[in-house]
């Protein structure tokens, strides 16, 4: 069983909601990332989604776009991201890490080479925003061969029939995009999420985590009631962007505070 499945099934057995946190590697500067990842774990994050900076992050809203731009100013690459995971693993062998990014850096790395290097670095899964099941076949073969989970998005526009197909490709967990739009959007509708999740829930045994538009403990709680877990991202990236002139420890503490309050909220369900 993969580290993700193991970790998430433990959470489920314990009756806990899953908390997934997204930050961009190298944002706002490279030294800030490692302490931040550890702070996330200390404050109760179950899965780390580490954003791989890309020049054209098509599915991101302005907040996370800026995070990518800040990291790219420091020339942070996919290779550099594997390096950070390796460093993280030196002291944490438990918390699952999913790399979230876009297809082109992985293409450039080479699918087979990437899967091997990622597994060696201690990565557990990959979420490639612009690789839907139709285009992922070759990469998936490589990920499977190296025991890496392939995480997929489900969207408000995903039909049940299609969700079934996606679920069949997915492992680890499924990520439900709570709204039509980009990351950090402000129009999350809890009732709409509820309706859609009711349908998807029938299709899969995989945990379903909900993200996009979760900015505060109240929303996190309202959404977590409906799902296996929640994903927070933009609110963390926004904070980190505003602290570019602060020390790595200060950034880590501030980001830790945000996820800590969300942890408390979803534990109170």
């Amino acid at each position: 069983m993969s580290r993700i499945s193991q970790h998430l099934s433990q959470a489920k057995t314990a009756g806990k909601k899953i908390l997934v946190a997204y930050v961009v590697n190298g944002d706002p500067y490279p030294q800030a990332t490692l302490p931040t990842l550890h702070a996330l774990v200390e404050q109760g994050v179950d899965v780390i989604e580490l954003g791989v900076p890309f020049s054209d992050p098509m599915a991101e809203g302005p907040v996370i776009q800026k995070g990518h731009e800040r990291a790219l100013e420091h020339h942070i690459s996919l290779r550099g991201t594997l390096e950070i995971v390796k460093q993280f693993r030196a002291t944490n062998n438990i918390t699952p890490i999913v790399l979230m990014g876009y297809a082109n850096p992985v293409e450039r790395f080479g699918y087979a080479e990437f899967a091997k290097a990622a597994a060696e670095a201690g990565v557990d899964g990959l979420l490639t925003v612009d690789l839907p099941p139709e285009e992922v076949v070759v990469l998936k073969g490589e990920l499977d061969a190296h025991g890496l989970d392939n995480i997929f998005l489900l969207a408000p526009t995903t039909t049940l029939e299609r969700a079934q197909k996606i679920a069949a490709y997915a492992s680890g967990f499924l990520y439900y995009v709570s709204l039509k739009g980009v990351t950090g959007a402000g129009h999350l509708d809890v009732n709409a999420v509820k309706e859609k999740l009711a349908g998807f829930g029938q299709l899969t045994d995989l945990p379903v985590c909900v993200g996009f538009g979760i900015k505060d403990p109240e929303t996190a709680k309202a959404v977590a009631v409906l799902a296996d877990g929640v994903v927070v991202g933009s609110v963390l990236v926004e904070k980190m962007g505003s602290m570019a002139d602060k020390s790595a420890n200060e950034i880590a503490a501030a980001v830790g505070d945000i996820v800590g309050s969300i942890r408390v909220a979803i534990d109170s369900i």
Partner: protein
Amino acid sequence: MSNTEHFSAIDYSAFPNAEGHFGPYGGRFVSETLIYALDELQSIYFNLKDDPGFQAEFDKDMAHYVGRPSPLYLAERWTRELGGAQIYLKREDLNHTGAHKVNNTIGQALLAKFTGKTRVIAETGAGQHGVATATVAARLGLKCRVYMGAEDVKRQALNVYRMKLLGAEVFPVTSGSRTLKDAMNEAMRDWATNVDDTFYIIGTVAGPHPYPQLVRDFQSIIGREARRQCLEQAGRLPDALVACVGGGSNAIGLFHPFLTDESVKMYGVEAGGLGIETGKHAAPLNKGIPGVLHGNRTYLMEDENGQIIETHSVSAGLDYPGVGPEHSWLKDIGRVNYVAINDDEALAAFRKITKTEGIMPALESSHALAYVEKLAPTMSKDQIIIANLSGRGDKDILTVAGLDGITV
């Protein structure tokens, strides 16, 4: 690879396949939210494309609104000067709004009408596609927003104002490199957000399937006309076709109806910028490698980490790091030759054609014409070149004046 015999044996209409692939290129590399919209677009397009009613409406608009067929004009004075092949110009510059772009926007706006969507969006570089989109939106009473890189908003002030006069909202994009590729990212984001009421009119043969196919089909009117006109006027097929390649829509429009004609050589002209060797260009087919951007796999300009790099061209319409996936495939199979023309060569051709033929070409089209300057003298006088004059140069007058140090 120059085994030309197999070129006539290929069934080009079988590309892309059902998944939108041209060999290893094309496809649908988008986030999940957009899959539904692409499925919807695909089913509408496939239902309508062979529908006589739809085709009749398209043909009617082409004739009475755009002013087609556009002439195929023998440039006698220029031909005489170069002393080689006879040069015919396909006059897309004479279309309403001044470029080939309108062929596509009329087609997509008709599709939008059938979907019942009330809002259209577009990305634009030079502003020609933005103007063509704003034009059809005005005519159909659709709300229209055009995304344009903040850099291009400055470079193409005239077209920005044209779009505003037409009732469109021009949205300057300040992310990334602030040019066409970033405008396309932003349009994709808008589409994902407003997918219920919005139709995305992509301006070239790029983007996720089915866009490269449907834009090609709408633009192929250029090549169908040129083929017929050449047979009528010269009594035979041309020996060579030349067109500039930004995303590749005017080029594929001219080339596609000739692909099975083995004797017809084809040249796609990319923007060589300051010179391919300087790295400051926009010529992915000459100097890029395959990768994934904007929903398809194709040749791209990128660094060793897979980050898309900034391009350079004097012409905003060619300033794009990718290219339509069908061109990538045509390059690999060897059917089309892709060459590059530098800024200064394009500018020289702009001046030359203006003075020699009394036709002021767009800077994009001037790249194709500059290649004709090289090609024609190597061919014999009984041979024929058709060059696609994809647009008129009025929009570029301020750029050219600026290079001359003149404020108009």
